[in-house]
């Protein structure tokens, strides 16, 4: 669609600037030859070099990516189902059950899950972190999918059913593509929430199952070091590559 709405593009551009302003600082300071991180001193790669020798930090980054990929995946499936359920049926329980986790303060959720896991005698580790992350991500996906559904023309899928398509076939060929942007938005939010969570993860993490936010929190006591900026930059680039690769391999998989 061609549009010449300059005002809209300018406004969006301004918001993009707002989004990227701090990011520029993160990247620039990861290349700055000053531990204090206060002003520009000189260019260096040494923080990246140090980073590749920091075993704990790299393991944590790997854990974080793994946890985020798995929990975002599971939460997207469950959240999409919940979003559809919320739309199709006026089940009073479901909206409450989906909304309350979003509203629950992180710290209470962390403590309650920790108590729950210990009651079940479950050992804490990557699995408990993933289970917790799925819990707080479902709601975000569901709300996004639900918002996409309202207003979608139901006659399409009805027509398909009238023509004899099986429910599954109809879902796959019609409902899913229609919902795709909502699902994609939900999945991106879930991934972001999971990769960035500190509070809940702190409580449900077991010994030695540190994630990147936990590791970074432990490092920033003495302000953010350039090394932390470097790992943040790296994580961002790595995630971008993973996602672009996935998108390249499935052109149109998540598109209407």
């Amino acid at each position, binding site marked *: 669609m061609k549009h010449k709405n300059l005002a809209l593009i300018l*406004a969006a551009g301004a*918001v*993009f600037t707002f*989004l990227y302003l*701090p*990011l520029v*600082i*993160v990247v620039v*300071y990861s290349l700055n030859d000053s531990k204090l991180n*206060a*002003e520009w001193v000189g260019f260096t790669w040494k923080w990246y070099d140090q980073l590749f020798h920091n075993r704990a930090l790299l393991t944590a980054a790997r854990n974080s990516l793994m946890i985020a990929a798995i929990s975002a995946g599971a939460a997207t499936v469950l*959240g999409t*189902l919940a979003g*559809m*359920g919320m739309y199709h049926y006026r089940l009073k*329980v479901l*909206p*409450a059950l*989906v*909304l*309350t986790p*979003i*509203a629950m*303060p*992180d*710290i*209470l*959720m962390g403590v*309650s*899950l920790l*108590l*729950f896991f210990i009651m079940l005698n479950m050992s804490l580790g990557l699995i408990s972190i993933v289970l917790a992350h799925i*819990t707080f991500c479902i709601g975000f996906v569901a*709300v*996004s999918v639900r*918002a*996409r559904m*309202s*207003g*979608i023309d*139901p006659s399409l*899928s009805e027509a398909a059913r009238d023509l004899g398509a099986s*429910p599954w076939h109809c879902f796959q060929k019609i409902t899913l593509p229609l919902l795709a*942007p*909502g699902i994609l*938005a*939900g999945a991106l*939010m879930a991934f*972001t929430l999971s990769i960035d969570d*500190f509070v809940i993860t702190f409580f449900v993490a077991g010994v030695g199952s540190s994630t*990147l*936010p936990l590791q*970074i929190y432990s490092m920033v006591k003495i302000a*953010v070091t350039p090394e932390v900026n470097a*790992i943040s930059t790296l994580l*961002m680039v790595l995630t*971008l590559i993973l996602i*672009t690769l996935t*998108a390249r391999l499935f052109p149109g998989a*998540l598109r209407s």
Partner: protein
Amino acid sequence: MKPNTARNVGSGDRWKRLLALPPMGYLLIFFAIPTLIMLFASFRYAGEYGGLAPWYGNEDGSLSINLTLENWQRLFETDLYLRLFLKSIMYALLATLLCILLGYPLALMIARSPKKHRDLLLLLVILPFWSNFLVRIYAWMIIFSPSGALTRMMNVLLATVGLAPVSLMYSSTAVIVCLVYVHLPFMVLPLYANLEKHNPALLAAAQDLGANRWRRFWDITWPLSLPGVYAGAILVFIPVLGTFAIPDLLGGTDGIMIANVIKQQFVESRDWPFGSVLSMALTAAAVLVVLLSAKMGTRRGTLR
């Protein structure tokens, strides 16, 4: 209720009801049960050194039930917590409004750009949020710092018009800016998902009828996008209420919000029962606000 066949349970559509079972089951186990444990905890006594005191039995072996309402009473004893709730709700409302204001043009621009660019633009919106939360906040602290370029530039400008220099660091402005920044993608993404499906033919038709750009926006795009705005508002308003790290780091001496006090109960003063009370009250308030506004939306016919 509006007649809408898709929402009625046809006999052949019964399987759809089953779809809601997996997420419901998951949330019942991993959310409802743990939450009930904490709800129960809000009626227990705090342990002498932290944690929870046993809710039955005594040290001498005699049997008694140790439950109390005093944690809930504490909530209403003073207006301290009520004031904090109101303050937090004001902050959250302001942040939500600003997110709509900033997020709408961005989402609209993405939804109206050529199809092949949309996913990329969407990715660009979320990309900054894959760096670490704390790292981003510290970047903002650099921007706000008195020696930072932004503050210096602003103060030079203020000086030319004869105003006193200001400091952004440790101010409520800094808190609001960061609250908006951190939650902006949660407005943009659902909004985009909604705007993306709008039928361009509608706008073209309106144009043919002579409606100008503003009329077309207010009469067509905006009302159609309300479910998206509403979803975004939920995903911004509620999480902002639960934020404590931003007021902690940027808020100065009186920047705290209700979530800071909740955090204090669980960590600093190790008063889990009162922490549960505050959390439950906050959650109930947030869900109530959301469900009430949903109800109002339904009545007005804009939302279903």
